[in-house]
Each structure stands twice: as C-alpha cells, then as structure tokens.
C-alpha cells in the first residue's frame, strides 16, 4: 500500500508542521531572554543565538499560544512522522546504496533528517513526561538546528517529486475508494513493492488511521493548555489534575515540599528585600497596604500546559520606583528556594500587569502556589513566575 502519493501526503503535513515547530521553538528560547544574566540554558549557543531578540511582555497570552502550539502540535505530529517513516522504509534497503557521489551525500543527509526528527520527538516527549536521561535544553536546541539543516536539504531535493506524486492522484477520489477498489500505485522510485500482496486496508483507511491517532493524542493532551472542560480529558497530560480547592484550585508546578519551603520561613518574620539605589525591606502586611493591581494572567509552562488565573498584587514597577531603580535596568528576582531565580528585562518589570502577586482569585496564595508572594509576568515562560519570593535586585546591567 506504500507509494509516492501516500508518502507525499504525510510529507506535505510535515512540510507545514515542522517549520511551525522550529519557529515556535526558537521563540521559546528567545522568551527565556537568554542574554540577561543567568537566564541562558544554552550558554554556548554561539551563532545559533544570532537571531535572539528581547522578549515582549504583551500580549499576555503570547507565550501561552506559541508554546501551546509548539508542544501540542509536536505531539499531534508524532503519528504523522511515524507513518512517514513507515512509508519510506523500502528505501532503506535500496541497492546499490548509491549510484553517484551526489546520491551518497543525499543519503548521508538523511541521517540528520531521520535521526533528527526522532531525536527531537523523543527529547521533547521525555521532557514533558519528566524523564530526562539526557540534558533537555541543549539536546533539543542543538538537535533542532542539526535536524533543520537536513530537513531543508531534504525538502529542496524532494519537493519536485512530492508535487509530482500529489498530482498523480486526487485526494477526493481516494477518499471515495474503499478496500475493494484499492490498487497499488504505479512502480516508481522504489517506494512501491514490485509484487505487493493483496491490500488489507485502503489508502483512505490509512489516512483515517493516522489522522485518528493524531486526533486521539490531541483530545488526550491538549486540554492541558486549552483548559476549561477539556482539561479533564487530558488523561496523558501531566497537569490535568489540581490540588487544593477553592481559589487555589489550579495545577501546581513544583510543590513547596519538593522545594524545601516550610511555613517556618514564610511566617510573620518573612520580609521581601528590595535592593537598588535604596535598600528596603517589606513585610507582607506592608505590601498589602500598597496600591494593588488585579489582572488575569497565564502561567504557561515550557512543557506546554497552561492555566489563566486572576492575580492581585503590587506592580513590579512600583517596587522598582520604591528602590529608586531607573526604568531601563533589569531585575533579578530571587526565591527562598536556593535554586529559584531569574533576571527580568525592563520591558517585563515595567509592563502594566507585571506584579508581585499576593492573592489569587480573591484569596491568599497557597503555599504550593508561592505564598507569601510570587512574581507573575505577562507572556513570560512559567518558570520565570518565581514563587516564594525573597529578594529583588534592581540593576543597570543586563
């Protein structure tokens, strides 16, 4: 049942999907603002960092959208990639392995395409499944560049064949052809078996099977970022369940217990330290007496899940002014958790809705959601919404 037409159908889906994956992936790396102090998960990015730009703090849903697309589209494409690999298997055993130097080089570049696509899928999947046999950030990032190099050449070399194959049959006719009418595609290019067995499935059957598998993956995961009623159907998402109840009933990323945070360090003695031209220390009561702002903002995780909640807190801009900081410096936000922290850009600190959140949905933050106070920055990766805040250092340096 294999043939150039079927391979090209999968190919055209990936031709659209994979560049979207690459671009949203590059956006995700830029969203980490890796050029700010301490933010870069891939410090030796070299020339691969040339495209980097200052990440924006508006609209607030931007990272939720791009990363939701990156992860959910990536998951939905897995069955298509597997179908594509299945459809070109006979090529692996074509003999002689090459007829010219050009063909040899082409086949070598397929190492990057086949190895690369499986590498990107597996590192992404294992990362969202919380199993990390290798380092995710450098693996997924540098792997993507190697894969895309091979992918670009593969597309240029095969584009003509793909268009030709797509024109050889009409999709509408195929969708009307059941098993009884299914015949092998004409012999060409080594994808079709020379003497195929009688078909046991029609072409439309294969398309329905691959599309149905993608649909199943979508329904069973996408609720994690779409939210609402769909969240409880995300049976293979990691964040389809929420602890607590009431105002704090939404998914947690990293529990207080695992971060070593206990009520002993978040009690009445807790102070937020502001360090800038002026040094100031504020209790939670003092923060609550300041002018508070309320905004609906997402927590959007790099792993693809997200949730929008109504946060109330002190604008970060007000804290910056209190510490005497200028409006073009950066802010290093630090957590009580020893490893927790990030550097925020001026655009993020002075965005109207950026805040040190004290309350969520009208109630105090729970300990798991960052009590006594957490940072919430519009459109930043969720990992920058630092919980259990202890200190903000305003600085002129980047």
């Amino acid at each position, binding site marked *: 049942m294999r043939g150039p037409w079927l391979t090209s159908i999968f190919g055209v889906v990936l031709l659209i999907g994979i560049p979207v994956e690459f671009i949203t992936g590059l956006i995700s790396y830029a969203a980490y603002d890796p050029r700010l102090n301490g933010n870069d998960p891939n410090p*030796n990015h*070299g*020339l*691969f960092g040339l495209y980097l730009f200052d990440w924006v703090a508006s609209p607030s849903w931007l990272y939720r959208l791009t990363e939701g697309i990156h992860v959910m589209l990536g998951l939905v494409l*897995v*069955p298509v990639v*597997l179908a594509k*690999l*299945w459809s070109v*298997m006979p090529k*692996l055993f074509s003999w002689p392995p090459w007829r*010219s*130097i*050009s*063909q040899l*080089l082409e086949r*070598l*570049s397929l190492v*990057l395409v086949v*190895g*690369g696509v*499986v*590498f990107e899928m*597996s*590192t992404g999947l294992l990362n969202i*499944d*919380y*199993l*990390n*046999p290798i*380092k995710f950030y*450098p*693996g997924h990032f*540098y*792997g993507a*560049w190697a894969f895309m*190099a091979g992918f670009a050449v593969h597309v240029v070399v095969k584009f003509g064949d793909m268009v030709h194959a797509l024109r050889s049959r009409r999709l509408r006719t195929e969708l009307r052809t*059941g*098993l*009884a009418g299914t015949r092998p595609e004409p012999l060409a290019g080594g994808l079709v078996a020379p*003497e*195929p*067995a*009688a078909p*046991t499935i029609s072409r439309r*059957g294969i398309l329905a*099977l691959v599309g*149905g*598998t993608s649909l*199943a*993956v979508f329904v069973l995961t996408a609720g994690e970022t779409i939210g609402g009623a769909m969240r409880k159907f995300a*049976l*293979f998402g990691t*964040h389809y*369940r929420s602890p607590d109840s009431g105002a704090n009933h939404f*998914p*947690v990323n*990293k*529990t207080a217990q*695992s971060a070593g945070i206990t009520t002993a360090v978040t009690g009445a003695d807790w102070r937020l330290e502001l360090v800038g031209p002026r040094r100031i220390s504020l209790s939670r009561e003092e923060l609550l007496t300041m002018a508070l702002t309320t905004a609906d903002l997402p927590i959007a995780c790099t792993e693809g899940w997200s949730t929008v909640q109504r946060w109330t807190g002190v604008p970060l801009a007000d804290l910056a002014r209190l510490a005497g900081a200028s409006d073009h410096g950066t802010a290093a936000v630090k957590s009580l958790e020893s490893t927790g922290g990030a550097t925020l850009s001026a655009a993020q600190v002075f965005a109207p809705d950026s805040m040190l959140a004290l309350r969520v949905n009208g109630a105090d933050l729970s300990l798991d959601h960052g009590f006594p106070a957490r940072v919430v920055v519009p459109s930043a990766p969720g990992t920058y919404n630092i919980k259990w805040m202890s200190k903000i250092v305003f600085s002129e340096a980047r």
Partner: protein
Amino acid sequence: MRWFRRHYGAGPLHLAGLLACFAVAAYAVTRVFGVSGWKGILLWFAVCLVGHDLIGWPIYTAADRVLVRAQQRHLGRRGFLVPWVNHVRVPVIISGTLLAMFFPLIFRLSQARYADYTGFDENVYLANWLAVTGALFAASGALYLLRLGVGRRRRVSGRRPPEYAPSERGPG
C-alpha cells in the same frame, strides 16, 4: 560543468546545499561538545537514528504479518466473513502510539520528579491507558459486530457483500 555532472551526479548547487547542511550540523556538534553530558546527547542521537528502522519497524511489521496471516487462515476456513484485521489494527496502533509517547508516566518511570512537580503520583496513568485501550477495542468490536450483522443479512438475501476483495495475486 559536464565533467562535474558526470563525476558528481548532480549540479554544483546540489553539492553546495549539502555541504552547507553538513556545516550547520557539524557546528551544532561543536556546540554540544561544550555541554557537560555531551556524550549522552550524541549517543541518544545515534539511538534515535536506528530506533525506528532497526527496532520499531521489525517489531510492528512482524506483528502485522502474523495478524494478516491469521485472518487469511480464518477467512479460508470459514468461507466468507467480514475481514477483521483492521478492527484489531486500529485500536492496537492508537493504544500503542499512546504507550510509546507516554510510557514514562504509564510505567511510573518518572514518579519522583513527577510528584515533586505536580503534587500527585503517576499511578493513575496506567489506569488511564487501560481505560482508553479498552474503550478503543470496545468501539472497534462493536463496529465489527455491526458490519458482521449487515454482511450476514446481505448473504441471506443473496448479494455478495463488497467489503472483502479476494486477493489478486495471492498472499505474498
């Protein structure tokens, strides 16, 4: 130019494109060298390269062949029956894909980290997977019984049902 084509097998742009591609990939490898744990990353890439072709493909192809042969024996022995092979393939493939994608959750391989990050444990995913698999097989089986019923009724009324095309070249 003709000399180039005869010895290389394609135009110079082809060569330039491929060399650029290998240059980018080689540069990516030099970036990986700077990461602690770079050996693991390169090894993982090698595993991915052969993972589908030398591990996944032989397994699922062999399993499918067994399935198709079983159906052929079955159809040969019992005369006409509605072919059932796709009613097994579809739930197996969907359920198997989900297993391949989410096995760390289903087999609780990342339990400690998962619990740290979510506040829950991974016990639920095996049950989720079994429930989804069960629902897929149940739906596929129900559809098969329906087709079987329609097929029998047609046979009684003397019309040959269109679902099963006899093999044209025999099993191969």
